[in-house]
Protein backbone atom coordinates (compact mmCIF):
# COMPACT_ATOMS: atom_id res chain seq x y z
CA UNK A 1 0.00 0.00 0.00
CA UNK A 2 1.58 3.29 -1.03
CA UNK A 3 0.69 6.88 -0.59
CA UNK A 4 -2.98 6.96 -1.65
CA UNK A 5 -4.72 8.34 1.38
CA UNK A 6 -6.59 11.20 2.95
CA UNK A 7 -7.14 12.94 6.27
CA UNK A 8 -9.44 15.52 7.78
CA UNK A 9 -8.56 17.91 10.63
CA UNK A 10 -11.22 19.65 12.70
CA UNK A 11 -10.75 22.46 15.26
CA UNK A 12 -13.24 23.49 17.88
CA UNK A 13 -14.64 20.07 18.72
CA UNK A 14 -13.33 17.43 21.12
CA UNK A 15 -12.26 14.01 19.90
CA UNK A 16 -15.26 12.17 21.36
CA UNK A 17 -17.99 14.17 19.61
CA UNK A 18 -15.94 14.18 16.41
CA UNK A 19 -15.66 10.38 16.38
CA UNK A 20 -19.34 10.15 17.21
CA UNK A 21 -20.15 12.35 14.22
CA UNK A 22 -18.06 10.03 12.07
CA UNK A 23 -19.66 6.97 13.69
CA UNK A 24 -16.25 5.73 14.74
CA UNK A 25 -15.13 4.13 18.00
CA UNK A 26 -11.70 3.89 19.55
CA UNK A 27 -10.02 0.51 19.67
CA UNK A 28 -7.57 1.48 22.39
CA UNK A 29 -4.61 0.57 20.18
CA UNK A 30 -1.87 2.65 18.68
CA UNK A 31 -0.38 1.78 15.33
CA UNK A 32 1.49 2.63 12.15
CA UNK A 33 -0.50 4.34 9.45
CA UNK A 34 0.23 1.68 6.81
CA UNK A 35 -0.86 -1.65 8.17
CA UNK A 36 -3.75 -2.94 6.13
CA UNK A 37 -6.64 -1.43 4.24
CA UNK A 38 -8.82 0.26 5.28
CA UNK A 39 -7.65 1.62 8.59
CA UNK A 40 -8.44 4.80 10.42
CA UNK A 41 -6.29 6.66 12.89
CA UNK A 42 -6.92 9.62 15.13
CA UNK A 43 -4.61 12.11 16.82
CA UNK A 44 -5.34 15.10 19.04
CA UNK A 45 -2.80 17.83 18.28
CA UNK A 46 -1.35 20.31 20.76
CA UNK A 47 -2.56 23.20 18.57
CA UNK A 48 -6.20 22.26 19.07
CA UNK A 49 -6.77 20.37 15.83
CA UNK A 50 -7.90 16.74 15.78
CA UNK A 51 -6.74 14.75 12.78
CA UNK A 52 -8.47 11.63 11.51
CA UNK A 53 -6.40 9.78 8.92
CA UNK A 54 -7.46 7.08 6.45
CA UNK A 55 -5.49 4.84 4.12
CA UNK A 56 -8.35 5.32 1.69
CA UNK A 57 -8.00 8.12 -0.86
CA UNK A 58 -11.74 8.74 -1.23
CA UNK A 59 -12.55 8.89 2.49
CA UNK A 60 -11.79 12.55 3.38
CA UNK A 61 -13.51 13.94 0.29
CA UNK A 62 -14.97 17.47 0.15
CA UNK A 63 -18.46 16.21 1.01
CA UNK A 64 -17.22 14.72 4.29
CA UNK A 65 -15.23 17.85 5.10
CA UNK A 66 -18.31 20.01 4.50
CA UNK A 67 -20.34 17.79 6.83
CA UNK A 68 -17.72 17.87 9.60
CA UNK A 69 -17.36 21.64 9.29
CA UNK A 70 -20.75 21.97 10.98
CA UNK A 71 -18.95 20.92 14.18
CA UNK A 72 -15.96 23.25 13.76
CA UNK A 73 -13.46 24.61 11.27
CA UNK A 74 -12.41 21.70 9.00
CA UNK A 75 -9.51 21.08 6.62
CA UNK A 76 -9.30 18.02 4.42
CA UNK A 77 -6.51 16.63 2.30
CA UNK A 78 -6.49 13.85 -0.31
CA UNK A 79 -3.28 12.78 -2.04
CA UNK A 80 -1.75 10.00 -4.06
CA UNK A 81 1.65 9.66 -5.71
CA UNK A 82 1.10 6.39 -7.56
CA UNK A 83 -0.86 7.21 -10.68
CA UNK A 84 -1.46 10.89 -11.46
CA UNK A 85 0.16 12.70 -8.50
CA UNK A 86 -3.25 13.99 -7.41
CA UNK A 87 -3.36 16.24 -4.36
CA UNK A 88 -6.31 18.22 -3.00
CA UNK A 89 -6.58 20.48 0.03
CA UNK A 90 -10.02 21.75 1.01
CA UNK A 91 -11.30 23.92 3.84
CA UNK A 92 -14.84 24.46 5.05
CA UNK A 93 -16.68 26.27 7.85
CA UNK A 94 -20.30 25.91 8.92
CA UNK A 95 -21.08 23.64 5.99
CA UNK A 96 -19.67 25.95 3.34
CA UNK A 97 -16.47 25.73 1.30
CA UNK A 98 -13.87 28.35 2.18
CA UNK A 99 -11.04 27.48 -0.19
CA UNK A 100 -9.76 24.67 -2.35
CA UNK A 101 -6.40 23.82 -4.01
CA UNK A 102 -6.22 20.96 -6.49
CA UNK A 103 -3.40 19.49 -8.56
CA UNK A 104 -3.20 16.54 -10.97
CA UNK A 105 -0.35 15.77 -13.31
CA UNK A 106 -1.94 16.71 -16.61
CA UNK A 107 0.46 15.55 -19.30
CA UNK A 108 -0.10 18.74 -21.24
CA UNK A 109 0.48 20.94 -18.20
CA UNK A 110 2.68 19.78 -15.36
CA UNK A 111 1.93 22.99 -13.43
CA UNK A 112 -1.84 22.56 -13.33
CA UNK A 113 -3.15 24.04 -10.04
CA UNK A 114 -6.84 24.86 -9.57
CA UNK A 115 -7.36 27.41 -6.77
CA UNK A 116 -10.61 28.76 -5.42
CA UNK A 117 -10.96 31.11 -2.46
CA UNK A 118 -7.95 32.42 -0.56
CA UNK A 119 -5.85 29.49 0.70
CA UNK A 120 -3.02 30.41 3.10
CA UNK A 121 0.42 31.03 1.51
CA UNK A 122 -0.69 29.79 -1.88
CA UNK A 123 1.02 32.53 -3.91
CA UNK A 124 4.30 32.09 -2.04
CA UNK A 125 4.14 28.32 -2.52
CA UNK A 126 3.28 28.66 -6.19
CA UNK A 127 6.32 30.84 -6.76
CA UNK A 128 8.60 28.37 -5.00
CA UNK A 129 7.38 25.13 -6.48
CA UNK A 130 6.62 26.38 -10.00
CA UNK A 131 10.22 27.57 -10.16
CA UNK A 132 11.45 24.14 -9.06
CA UNK A 133 9.20 22.47 -11.63
CA UNK A 134 10.52 24.63 -14.45
CA UNK A 135 14.14 24.30 -13.42
CA UNK A 136 14.31 20.59 -12.88
CA UNK A 137 10.92 18.94 -12.43
CA UNK A 138 10.00 18.58 -16.09
CA UNK A 139 13.45 17.43 -17.11
CA UNK A 140 13.80 14.90 -14.29
CA UNK A 141 10.22 13.51 -14.26
CA UNK A 142 9.56 14.90 -10.77
CA UNK A 143 6.30 16.57 -9.77
CA UNK A 144 7.00 19.46 -7.37
CA UNK A 145 3.60 21.09 -7.88
CA UNK A 146 2.08 18.05 -6.11
CA UNK A 147 3.55 19.52 -2.89
CA UNK A 148 1.53 22.73 -2.99
CA UNK A 149 -1.85 21.44 -1.67
CA UNK A 150 -0.01 19.49 1.05
CA UNK A 151 1.87 22.60 2.14
CA UNK A 152 -1.32 24.69 2.08
CA UNK A 153 -3.07 22.15 4.30
CA UNK A 154 -0.09 22.18 6.67
CA UNK A 155 -0.20 25.98 6.81
CA UNK A 156 -3.89 25.81 7.75
CA UNK A 157 -3.76 23.18 10.51
CA UNK A 158 -0.11 22.32 11.15
CA UNK A 159 -0.27 18.71 9.96
CA UNK A 160 1.64 17.08 7.11
CA UNK A 161 1.91 13.30 6.97
CA UNK A 162 5.50 12.87 5.91
CA UNK A 163 6.83 15.36 8.47
CA UNK A 164 4.86 14.14 11.48
CA UNK A 165 6.15 11.79 14.16
CA UNK A 166 3.27 11.94 16.61
CA UNK A 167 1.36 8.96 17.90
CA UNK A 168 -1.90 7.98 16.25
CA UNK A 169 -4.63 5.84 17.81
CA UNK A 170 -6.49 3.27 15.76
CA UNK A 171 -10.20 3.92 15.38
CA UNK A 172 -12.78 1.93 13.48
CA UNK A 173 -16.35 2.27 12.26
CA UNK A 174 -18.87 1.32 14.92
CA UNK A 175 -19.70 -2.33 14.30
CA UNK A 176 -16.38 -3.17 12.66
CA UNK A 177 -14.84 -2.76 9.21
CA UNK A 178 -16.33 -3.99 5.94
CA UNK A 179 -14.81 -7.24 4.55
CA UNK A 180 -11.65 -6.90 2.47
CA UNK A 181 -12.13 -7.33 -1.31
CA UNK A 182 -9.87 -9.64 -3.25
CA UNK A 183 -7.42 -8.47 -5.90
CA UNK A 184 -9.58 -9.24 -8.93
CA UNK A 185 -12.71 -7.93 -7.27
CA UNK A 186 -11.02 -4.60 -6.69
CA UNK A 187 -9.32 -4.60 -10.10
CA UNK A 188 -12.35 -5.43 -12.20
CA UNK A 189 -15.08 -4.29 -9.87
CA UNK A 190 -17.10 -1.08 -9.93
CA UNK A 191 -15.06 1.80 -11.26
Amino acid at each position, binding site marked *: *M*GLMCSWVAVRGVAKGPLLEALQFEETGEQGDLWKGIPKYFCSERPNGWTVVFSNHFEWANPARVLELSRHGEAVGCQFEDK*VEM*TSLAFAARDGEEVWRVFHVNDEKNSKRLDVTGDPPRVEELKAEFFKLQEEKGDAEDVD*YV*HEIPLEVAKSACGYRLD*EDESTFHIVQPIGGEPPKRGFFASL*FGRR
Partner: protein
Amino acid sequence: MAGGQQSRPRASGWDQFRARVAQAEADARRAAQQATQTLAAARQRVERAVVDPRVLAAVAPGAAIAQIIRNPEVKRQATAVVRNGQSAVQAMGRGVVQTLVENPLLITNGVAAVPTVVATNPKMRNQALAGGRGAQDAFTFGLGDRVYAGGSALYDAASGKDLGQAYRDRMEIERERDRYDAEHYPVARTVGQVTGTAGQIALLSPVQAIAGGARIAQAAPLVGREIMALGAAGATAGVADQAVSDLMAWELGSLGDYAGSALGGVAGVTTAKTGNAALAGSVSGATASLLQDAFNGRPISADDARAAALIGSSFGALGGRVGRKESNELNGLQKQRLGEWVSRQRTFVRGDETLPHDPTAYKLPSQRNTYPDQRTRRGILVESKFGRGARLSRNQTEAAETLSNYRVDATLPQDIGFAVGLPVGLLSADLWLHGRE
Protein backbone atom coordinates in the same frame (compact mmCIF):
# COMPACT_ATOMS: atom_id res chain seq x y z
CA MET B 1 28.69 -2.80 -65.04
CA ALA B 2 28.60 -0.78 -68.32
CA GLY B 3 25.84 -1.44 -70.82
CA GLY B 4 26.57 -3.72 -73.81
CA GLN B 5 28.65 -6.31 -71.88
CA GLN B 6 27.33 -9.82 -71.37
CA SER B 7 25.99 -10.47 -67.88
CA ARG B 8 28.33 -12.51 -65.73
CA PRO B 9 27.36 -15.95 -64.41
CA ARG B 10 25.92 -15.99 -60.85
CA ALA B 11 28.46 -15.77 -58.07
CA SER B 12 29.73 -19.13 -56.80
CA GLY B 13 28.67 -18.19 -53.29
CA TRP B 14 25.03 -18.15 -54.36
CA ASP B 15 25.27 -21.68 -55.84
CA GLN B 16 26.93 -22.94 -52.67
CA PHE B 17 24.19 -21.37 -50.59
CA ARG B 18 21.44 -23.00 -52.66
CA ALA B 19 23.15 -26.38 -52.36
CA ARG B 20 23.39 -26.03 -48.58
CA VAL B 21 19.73 -25.05 -48.32
CA ALA B 22 18.71 -28.09 -50.40
CA GLN B 23 20.80 -30.38 -48.15
CA ALA B 24 19.32 -28.85 -45.01
CA GLU B 25 15.81 -29.25 -46.41
CA ALA B 26 16.43 -32.97 -47.10
CA ASP B 27 17.89 -33.48 -43.62
CA ALA B 28 15.04 -31.60 -42.00
CA ARG B 29 12.45 -33.66 -43.93
CA ARG B 30 14.02 -36.91 -42.64
CA ALA B 31 14.08 -35.64 -39.07
CA ALA B 32 10.52 -34.35 -39.34
CA GLN B 33 9.31 -37.78 -40.53
CA GLN B 34 10.92 -39.46 -37.54
CA ALA B 35 9.55 -36.86 -35.14
CA THR B 36 6.08 -37.12 -36.63
CA GLN B 37 6.04 -40.91 -36.21
CA THR B 38 7.13 -40.60 -32.59
CA LEU B 39 4.57 -37.90 -31.90
CA ALA B 40 1.80 -39.85 -33.63
CA ALA B 41 2.45 -42.81 -31.33
CA ALA B 42 2.43 -40.50 -28.31
CA ARG B 43 -0.76 -38.87 -29.48
CA GLN B 44 -2.53 -42.21 -29.72
CA ARG B 45 -1.55 -43.00 -26.16
CA VAL B 46 -2.73 -39.61 -24.95
CA GLU B 47 -5.99 -39.80 -26.84
CA ARG B 48 -6.75 -43.16 -25.27
CA ALA B 49 -6.00 -41.86 -21.80
CA VAL B 50 -7.58 -38.42 -21.96
CA VAL B 51 -11.18 -37.51 -22.56
CA ASP B 52 -11.21 -33.82 -21.73
CA PRO B 53 -9.86 -31.81 -24.68
CA ARG B 54 -8.59 -29.15 -22.28
CA VAL B 55 -6.30 -31.71 -20.68
CA LEU B 56 -5.15 -32.79 -24.13
CA ALA B 57 -4.28 -29.19 -24.92
CA ALA B 58 -2.27 -29.00 -21.71
CA VAL B 59 -0.43 -32.28 -22.28
CA ALA B 60 0.38 -31.95 -26.00
CA PRO B 61 2.52 -28.81 -25.73
CA GLY B 62 4.37 -30.33 -22.80
CA ALA B 63 5.02 -33.51 -24.77
CA ALA B 64 6.17 -31.41 -27.73
CA ILE B 65 8.58 -29.44 -25.59
CA ALA B 66 9.92 -32.66 -24.06
CA GLN B 67 10.51 -34.03 -27.55
CA ILE B 68 12.36 -30.87 -28.52
CA ILE B 69 14.60 -31.08 -25.49
CA ARG B 70 15.33 -34.81 -25.66
CA ASN B 71 15.53 -35.58 -29.39
CA PRO B 72 19.15 -35.16 -30.51
CA GLU B 73 18.22 -35.54 -34.20
CA VAL B 74 15.87 -32.54 -34.06
CA LYS B 75 18.50 -30.51 -32.26
CA ARG B 76 21.04 -31.47 -34.94
CA GLN B 77 18.65 -30.38 -37.71
CA ALA B 78 17.89 -27.10 -35.96
CA THR B 79 21.62 -26.46 -35.71
CA ALA B 80 21.99 -27.28 -39.41
CA VAL B 81 19.26 -24.78 -40.29
CA VAL B 82 21.00 -22.09 -38.26
CA ARG B 83 24.35 -22.91 -39.89
CA ASN B 84 22.77 -22.74 -43.35
CA GLY B 85 21.26 -19.41 -42.44
CA GLN B 86 24.73 -18.21 -41.50
CA SER B 87 26.08 -19.49 -44.82
CA ALA B 88 23.33 -17.63 -46.66
CA VAL B 89 24.27 -14.43 -44.86
CA GLN B 90 27.92 -14.99 -45.74
CA ALA B 91 27.01 -15.61 -49.38
CA MET B 92 24.96 -12.42 -49.46
CA GLY B 93 27.90 -10.61 -47.89
CA ARG B 94 30.17 -11.87 -50.68
CA GLY B 95 27.56 -10.66 -53.18
CA VAL B 96 27.61 -7.21 -51.62
CA VAL B 97 31.40 -7.10 -51.78
CA GLN B 98 31.32 -8.14 -55.44
CA THR B 99 28.77 -5.38 -56.18
CA LEU B 100 31.01 -2.82 -54.52
CA VAL B 101 34.04 -4.00 -56.49
CA GLU B 102 32.10 -3.74 -59.77
CA ASN B 103 30.74 -0.30 -58.85
CA PRO B 104 33.50 1.68 -57.12
CA LEU B 105 31.25 4.76 -57.03
CA LEU B 106 29.40 3.10 -54.15
CA ILE B 107 32.65 3.00 -52.17
CA THR B 108 33.66 6.57 -52.83
CA ASN B 109 30.22 8.21 -52.68
CA GLY B 110 28.28 5.73 -50.54
CA VAL B 111 24.48 5.78 -50.55
CA ALA B 112 24.41 8.95 -52.65
CA ALA B 113 25.84 6.96 -55.55
CA VAL B 114 23.01 4.40 -55.54
CA PRO B 115 20.69 6.30 -57.93
CA THR B 116 23.56 6.83 -60.40
CA VAL B 117 24.70 3.21 -60.23
CA VAL B 118 21.13 1.93 -60.60
CA ALA B 119 20.46 4.25 -63.54
CA THR B 120 23.63 3.25 -65.39
CA ASN B 121 23.66 -0.47 -64.58
CA PRO B 122 20.91 -2.32 -66.48
CA LYS B 123 21.00 -5.36 -64.19
CA MET B 124 20.68 -3.28 -61.05
CA ARG B 125 18.05 -1.09 -62.67
CA ASN B 126 15.92 -4.09 -63.53
CA GLN B 127 16.27 -5.45 -60.01
CA ALA B 128 15.24 -2.11 -58.54
CA LEU B 129 12.19 -2.03 -60.82
CA ALA B 130 11.31 -5.61 -59.86
CA GLY B 131 11.62 -4.66 -56.21
CA GLY B 132 9.39 -1.64 -56.71
CA ARG B 133 6.74 -3.70 -58.47
CA GLY B 134 6.92 -6.26 -55.65
CA ALA B 135 6.45 -3.53 -53.05
CA GLN B 136 3.47 -2.13 -54.92
CA ASP B 137 1.86 -5.56 -55.28
CA ALA B 138 2.26 -6.30 -51.56
CA PHE B 139 1.17 -2.89 -50.34
CA THR B 140 -1.99 -2.87 -52.46
CA PHE B 141 -2.79 -6.59 -52.03
CA GLY B 142 -2.32 -6.91 -55.79
CA LEU B 143 -4.87 -4.23 -56.54
CA GLY B 144 -2.18 -1.95 -57.93
CA ASP B 145 -1.91 -4.09 -61.06
CA ARG B 146 -5.69 -3.92 -61.54
CA VAL B 147 -5.74 -0.18 -61.14
CA TYR B 148 -2.88 0.24 -63.61
CA ALA B 149 -4.46 -2.20 -66.08
CA GLY B 150 -7.80 -0.43 -65.75
CA GLY B 151 -6.29 2.97 -66.40
CA SER B 152 -4.33 1.70 -69.39
CA ALA B 153 -7.42 -0.07 -70.74
CA LEU B 154 -9.35 3.17 -70.64
CA TYR B 155 -6.64 4.77 -72.75
CA ASP B 156 -6.77 1.83 -75.15
CA ALA B 157 -10.56 2.07 -75.33
CA ALA B 158 -10.28 5.76 -76.16
CA SER B 159 -8.10 4.70 -79.10
CA GLY B 160 -10.81 2.40 -80.39
CA LYS B 161 -10.21 -0.92 -78.61
CA ASP B 162 -12.93 -2.90 -76.84
CA LEU B 163 -12.70 -1.93 -73.12
CA GLY B 164 -13.18 -5.44 -71.73
CA GLN B 165 -10.63 -7.01 -74.06
CA ALA B 166 -8.20 -4.14 -73.45
CA TYR B 167 -8.43 -4.73 -69.65
CA ARG B 168 -7.84 -8.46 -70.07
CA ASP B 169 -4.84 -7.81 -72.32
CA ARG B 170 -3.34 -5.30 -69.88
CA MET B 171 -3.85 -7.64 -66.91
CA GLU B 172 -2.12 -10.44 -68.81
CA ILE B 173 0.83 -8.11 -69.38
CA GLU B 174 0.98 -7.35 -65.64
CA ARG B 175 0.78 -11.03 -64.71
CA GLU B 176 3.48 -11.90 -67.24
CA ARG B 177 5.67 -9.17 -65.79
CA ASP B 178 5.13 -10.54 -62.28
CA ARG B 179 6.04 -14.04 -63.49
CA TYR B 180 9.18 -12.71 -65.19
CA ASP B 181 10.22 -10.84 -62.04
CA ALA B 182 9.61 -13.89 -59.85
CA GLU B 183 11.73 -16.03 -62.19
CA HIS B 184 14.59 -13.63 -62.96
CA TYR B 185 14.72 -11.34 -59.92
CA PRO B 186 13.29 -13.46 -57.09
CA VAL B 187 15.36 -11.82 -54.36
CA ALA B 188 14.64 -8.28 -55.48
CA ARG B 189 10.94 -9.03 -55.87
CA THR B 190 10.77 -10.67 -52.44
CA VAL B 191 12.61 -7.78 -50.84
CA GLY B 192 10.14 -5.44 -52.50
CA GLN B 193 7.17 -7.48 -51.31
CA VAL B 194 8.56 -7.50 -47.79
CA THR B 195 8.98 -3.75 -47.98
CA GLY B 196 5.40 -3.36 -49.16
CA THR B 197 4.12 -5.56 -46.33
CA ALA B 198 6.23 -3.57 -43.88
CA GLY B 199 4.46 -0.48 -45.16
CA GLN B 200 1.07 -2.08 -44.46
CA ILE B 201 2.21 -3.07 -40.97
CA ALA B 202 3.47 0.45 -40.31
CA LEU B 203 -0.01 1.75 -41.11
CA LEU B 204 -1.43 -0.59 -38.44
CA SER B 205 0.62 0.75 -35.54
CA PRO B 206 -1.57 3.85 -35.06
CA VAL B 207 -4.59 1.57 -34.44
CA GLN B 208 -3.28 1.18 -30.91
CA ALA B 209 -2.28 4.86 -30.60
CA ILE B 210 -4.01 5.35 -27.30
CA ALA B 211 -2.61 5.81 -23.83
CA GLY B 212 0.97 5.76 -25.02
CA GLY B 213 3.62 7.64 -23.14
CA ALA B 214 7.19 7.80 -21.98
CA ARG B 215 8.45 5.94 -18.94
CA ILE B 216 9.93 8.10 -16.18
CA ALA B 217 13.69 8.33 -16.20
CA GLN B 218 14.10 6.81 -12.74
CA ALA B 219 12.32 3.56 -13.67
CA ALA B 220 14.45 0.51 -12.99
CA PRO B 221 15.56 -1.14 -16.25
CA LEU B 222 15.05 -4.83 -16.88
CA VAL B 223 17.83 -7.04 -15.58
CA GLY B 224 19.07 -10.21 -17.27
CA ARG B 225 16.75 -12.53 -15.36
CA GLU B 226 13.76 -10.43 -16.30
CA ILE B 227 14.73 -10.47 -19.97
CA MET B 228 15.07 -14.25 -19.83
CA ALA B 229 11.72 -14.49 -18.09
CA LEU B 230 10.14 -12.39 -20.84
CA GLY B 231 11.64 -14.74 -23.42
CA ALA B 232 10.22 -17.72 -21.56
CA ALA B 233 6.85 -16.00 -21.40
CA GLY B 234 6.98 -15.45 -25.15
CA ALA B 235 7.81 -19.10 -25.74
CA THR B 236 4.97 -20.17 -23.45
CA ALA B 237 2.58 -17.90 -25.30
CA GLY B 238 3.74 -19.42 -28.58
CA VAL B 239 3.16 -22.97 -27.37
CA ALA B 240 -0.21 -22.05 -25.88
CA ASP B 241 -1.29 -20.28 -29.06
CA GLN B 242 -0.31 -23.32 -31.14
CA ALA B 243 -2.29 -25.55 -28.77
CA VAL B 244 -5.35 -23.33 -29.05
CA SER B 245 -5.13 -23.30 -32.83
CA ASP B 246 -4.82 -27.11 -32.75
CA LEU B 247 -7.92 -27.30 -30.58
CA MET B 248 -9.91 -25.09 -32.87
CA ALA B 249 -8.87 -27.15 -35.88
CA TRP B 250 -9.16 -30.36 -33.81
CA GLU B 251 -5.87 -31.48 -35.23
CA LEU B 252 -2.60 -31.90 -33.36
CA GLY B 253 0.20 -29.82 -34.80
CA SER B 254 3.64 -31.24 -35.48
CA LEU B 255 6.71 -30.86 -33.34
CA GLY B 256 7.99 -28.30 -35.82
CA ASP B 257 4.77 -26.30 -35.50
CA TYR B 258 5.17 -26.03 -31.73
CA ALA B 259 8.84 -25.23 -31.94
CA GLY B 260 8.23 -22.59 -34.60
CA SER B 261 5.44 -20.97 -32.65
CA ALA B 262 7.45 -21.00 -29.41
CA LEU B 263 10.40 -19.30 -31.09
CA GLY B 264 7.97 -16.93 -32.79
CA GLY B 265 6.81 -15.87 -29.34
CA VAL B 266 10.40 -15.32 -28.25
CA ALA B 267 11.06 -13.22 -31.35
CA GLY B 268 7.97 -11.11 -30.65
CA VAL B 269 9.17 -10.43 -27.12
CA THR B 270 12.36 -8.85 -28.47
CA THR B 271 10.22 -5.86 -29.49
CA ALA B 272 8.95 -5.35 -25.92
CA LYS B 273 10.88 -2.15 -25.47
CA THR B 274 8.86 -0.48 -28.23
CA GLY B 275 5.55 -1.28 -26.51
CA ASN B 276 4.19 -1.81 -30.03
CA ALA B 277 1.95 -4.88 -30.09
CA ALA B 278 1.43 -4.58 -33.86
CA LEU B 279 5.16 -4.89 -34.40
CA ALA B 280 5.34 -7.77 -31.95
CA GLY B 281 2.51 -9.58 -33.73
CA SER B 282 4.19 -9.15 -37.12
CA VAL B 283 7.62 -10.32 -35.93
CA SER B 284 6.20 -13.32 -34.09
CA GLY B 285 3.92 -14.31 -36.99
CA ALA B 286 6.65 -14.07 -39.61
CA THR B 287 9.16 -15.93 -37.44
CA ALA B 288 6.69 -18.69 -36.64
CA SER B 289 5.90 -19.14 -40.34
CA LEU B 290 9.52 -19.29 -41.46
CA LEU B 291 10.61 -21.65 -38.70
CA GLN B 292 7.60 -23.92 -39.07
CA ASP B 293 8.49 -24.29 -42.76
CA ALA B 294 12.11 -25.08 -41.87
CA PHE B 295 11.34 -27.48 -39.02
CA ASN B 296 8.65 -29.31 -41.00
CA GLY B 297 10.90 -29.79 -44.01
CA ARG B 298 8.85 -27.54 -46.29
CA PRO B 299 10.31 -25.01 -48.72
CA ILE B 300 10.55 -21.73 -46.87
CA SER B 301 7.74 -19.52 -48.14
CA ALA B 302 8.33 -15.78 -48.02
CA ASP B 303 4.72 -15.20 -49.11
CA ASP B 304 3.38 -17.15 -46.15
CA ALA B 305 5.71 -15.29 -43.82
CA ARG B 306 4.52 -11.96 -45.14
CA ALA B 307 0.89 -12.96 -44.75
CA ALA B 308 1.49 -14.25 -41.23
CA ALA B 309 3.28 -11.02 -40.37
CA LEU B 310 0.37 -8.94 -41.61
CA ILE B 311 -2.25 -11.02 -39.81
CA GLY B 312 -0.20 -11.05 -36.62
CA SER B 313 0.24 -7.31 -36.86
CA SER B 314 -3.47 -6.65 -37.45
CA PHE B 315 -4.69 -8.63 -34.50
CA GLY B 316 -1.74 -7.63 -32.38
CA ALA B 317 -2.71 -4.00 -32.95
CA LEU B 318 -6.29 -4.69 -31.92
CA GLY B 319 -5.20 -6.59 -28.82
CA GLY B 320 -2.74 -3.86 -27.99
CA ARG B 321 -5.44 -1.23 -28.26
CA VAL B 322 -7.76 -3.15 -25.96
CA GLY B 323 -5.03 -3.70 -23.38
CA ARG B 324 -3.98 -0.07 -23.38
CA LYS B 325 -7.50 1.32 -23.27
CA GLU B 326 -8.81 -0.95 -20.55
CA SER B 327 -5.82 -0.49 -18.26
CA ASN B 328 -5.79 3.25 -18.81
CA GLU B 329 -9.47 3.51 -17.84
CA LEU B 330 -9.11 1.74 -14.50
CA ASN B 331 -9.70 3.92 -11.47
CA GLY B 332 -6.82 5.13 -9.33
CA LEU B 333 -6.97 2.33 -6.78
CA GLN B 334 -7.15 -0.33 -9.47
CA LYS B 335 -4.18 1.20 -11.28
CA GLN B 336 -2.24 1.29 -8.04
CA ARG B 337 -2.95 -2.39 -7.41
CA LEU B 338 -2.03 -3.31 -10.97
CA GLY B 339 1.27 -1.48 -10.64
CA GLU B 340 2.00 -3.21 -7.32
CA TRP B 341 1.14 -6.59 -8.84
CA VAL B 342 3.64 -5.98 -11.65
CA SER B 343 6.24 -5.03 -9.03
CA ARG B 344 5.67 -8.28 -7.16
CA GLN B 345 6.25 -10.24 -10.36
CA ARG B 346 9.45 -8.32 -11.07
CA THR B 347 10.69 -9.00 -7.56
CA PHE B 348 9.92 -12.70 -7.94
CA VAL B 349 11.67 -12.96 -11.32
CA ARG B 350 14.71 -11.22 -9.84
CA GLY B 351 14.99 -14.06 -7.38
CA ASP B 352 13.72 -12.07 -4.42
CA GLU B 353 10.53 -12.15 -2.38
CA THR B 354 8.04 -9.42 -1.52
CA LEU B 355 7.42 -9.36 2.20
CA PRO B 356 3.75 -9.69 3.13
CA HIS B 357 3.48 -6.66 5.37
CA ASP B 358 3.38 -3.08 4.22
CA PRO B 359 6.58 -1.24 5.04
CA THR B 360 6.52 1.66 7.43
CA ALA B 361 7.86 5.13 6.92
CA TYR B 362 11.52 5.40 5.95
CA LYS B 363 13.45 8.42 7.23
CA LEU B 364 15.29 10.46 4.61
CA PRO B 365 18.34 12.75 5.11
CA SER B 366 15.97 15.72 4.96
CA GLN B 367 14.15 14.23 8.01
CA ARG B 368 11.01 13.82 5.93
CA ASN B 369 9.57 10.32 5.49
CA THR B 370 9.05 8.28 2.38
CA TYR B 371 6.57 5.42 2.21
CA PRO B 372 7.62 2.76 -0.30
CA ASP B 373 4.97 0.36 -1.53
CA GLN B 374 6.84 -2.85 -0.85
CA ARG B 375 9.90 -4.17 0.90
CA THR B 376 11.63 -7.35 -0.26
CA ARG B 377 13.44 -10.03 1.67
CA ARG B 378 16.76 -8.66 0.38
CA GLY B 379 15.91 -5.23 1.78
CA ILE B 380 14.94 -3.52 -1.47
CA LEU B 381 12.38 -0.73 -1.10
CA VAL B 382 10.04 -0.73 -4.10
CA GLU B 383 8.05 2.25 -5.30
CA SER B 384 5.34 1.17 -7.79
CA LYS B 385 3.88 3.55 -10.33
CA PHE B 386 1.25 3.01 -12.98
CA GLY B 387 0.18 5.29 -15.78
CA ARG B 388 1.38 8.07 -18.01
CA GLY B 389 0.84 10.72 -15.36
CA ALA B 390 2.94 9.09 -12.64
CA ARG B 391 6.02 11.01 -11.56
CA LEU B 392 8.26 10.98 -8.53
CA SER B 393 7.38 13.23 -5.60
CA ARG B 394 9.98 15.35 -3.88
CA ASN B 395 10.50 12.72 -1.18
CA GLN B 396 10.68 9.86 -3.67
CA THR B 397 13.29 11.76 -5.67
CA GLU B 398 15.36 12.19 -2.52
CA ALA B 399 14.99 8.48 -1.78
CA ALA B 400 16.05 7.52 -5.31
CA GLU B 401 19.10 9.77 -5.06
CA THR B 402 20.22 8.80 -1.56
CA LEU B 403 19.18 5.18 -1.04
CA SER B 404 21.06 2.45 -2.88
CA ASN B 405 18.31 -0.10 -2.17
CA TYR B 406 15.46 1.93 -3.71
CA ARG B 407 13.79 0.63 -6.87
CA VAL B 408 11.19 2.49 -8.93
CA ASP B 409 8.89 0.36 -11.10
CA ALA B 410 6.96 2.39 -13.65
CA THR B 411 4.34 0.42 -15.60
CA LEU B 412 2.52 1.99 -18.53
CA PRO B 413 -0.74 1.09 -20.29
CA GLN B 414 1.33 0.20 -23.37
CA ASP B 415 2.99 -2.57 -21.36
CA ILE B 416 -0.43 -4.08 -20.69
CA GLY B 417 -1.30 -3.56 -24.36
CA PHE B 418 1.86 -5.41 -25.38
CA ALA B 419 1.13 -8.26 -22.99
CA VAL B 420 -2.34 -8.64 -24.52
CA GLY B 421 -1.47 -7.91 -28.14
CA LEU B 422 1.50 -10.26 -28.58
CA PRO B 423 -0.32 -13.52 -27.77
CA VAL B 424 -3.41 -12.38 -29.67
CA GLY B 425 -1.33 -11.51 -32.73
CA LEU B 426 0.61 -14.77 -32.61
CA LEU B 427 -2.59 -16.77 -32.11
CA SER B 428 -4.16 -15.21 -35.18
CA ALA B 429 -1.02 -15.98 -37.20
CA ASP B 430 -1.02 -19.57 -35.89
CA LEU B 431 -4.66 -19.99 -36.87
CA TRP B 432 -3.91 -18.75 -40.37
CA LEU B 433 -0.83 -20.96 -40.65
CA HIS B 434 -2.94 -23.91 -39.52
CA GLY B 435 -5.48 -23.14 -42.22
CA ARG B 436 -2.92 -22.91 -45.00
CA GLU B 437 -1.77 -26.47 -44.28
